């Protein structure tokens, strides 16, 4: 049970913070306009010069191995819905880290996600 909580923490919290870091890096780099090989190489080069990108990658790597660990213990139809708790972390992180205004409707969506996760957990069977 403790292992399960720890693994879910890594997947949900560390994974989502990693995504937020990558998002921040991508916003710094800007939109990709051309899809020629040279443009793609230059784009990747610029991406790896942003520190947020590296931090994001490491955190997403940790989340990936935690996901593997969790999937070795439980069914995908149980594990994947629970990872939707990342929307809760996403809303809080978007609010505090990216400065997004989180509307009341969005909080309602977040609460629905939480309610759904509780049912999935109770329905473990």
């Amino acid at each position: 049970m403790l292992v399960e909580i720890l693994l879910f923490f890594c997947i949900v919290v560390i994974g989502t913070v990693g995504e937020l870091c990558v998002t921040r890096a991508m916003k710094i780099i800007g939109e990709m306009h051309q899809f020629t090989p040279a443009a793609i190489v230059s784009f990747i080069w610029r991406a790896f010069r942003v520190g947020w990108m590296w931090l994001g990658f490491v955190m997403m790597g940790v989340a990936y191995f935690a996901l593997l660990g969790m999937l070795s213990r439980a069914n995908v139809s149980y594990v994947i819905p629970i990872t939707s708790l990342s929307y809760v972390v996403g809303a809080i992180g978007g609010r505090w880290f990216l400065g997004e205004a989180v509307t009341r409707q969005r909080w309602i969506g977040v609460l629905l996600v939480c309610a759904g996760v509780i049912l999935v957990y109770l329905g473990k069977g």
Partner: protein
Amino acid sequence: MSVSPKLRFKTYLLISMLIVLGPVGDLLLGKGMRRIGPAADWSAAAILHHGFQILTSPAVCIGTVLLIGFFISYTLVLTWADYSYVQPATALSYGIVALLGRYALGEGVTPLRWGGIAIVCLGVLVIGYTPPRTTVPAVLEAPAEREAETLEPELESVHAR
């Protein structure tokens, strides 16, 4: 001014890839890892053996490639679309994973769990119907839209090649 059709097409194409690559990747990881099972203990030998089993499992490897494809599509779409717009668009994937788990892996899904998954999808959709862009002040909107318009000739030149 509306967003150019090419930009819209590019966005929808990548979001469809997200919805397919994510669930199928998760499914393959689940299939592979369930066969391997948890590590026997935390000794170095057990962890090495476990790592070797994971690296040589075709299902885990293909699933990982698909999830990397998912991550690249996700990263690309985030260079022009908002995180809070893209993330909810993947709401369907929770339902798809559950269906695949049930019918492809034969997992037993209780009615309570189906209900929970449905509410999760609903919650994600409710989040999706909130304004997609909150960080850009009104004065910055016009240049952002001009950028979307100027994208069109560039994309056309790419297609012409």
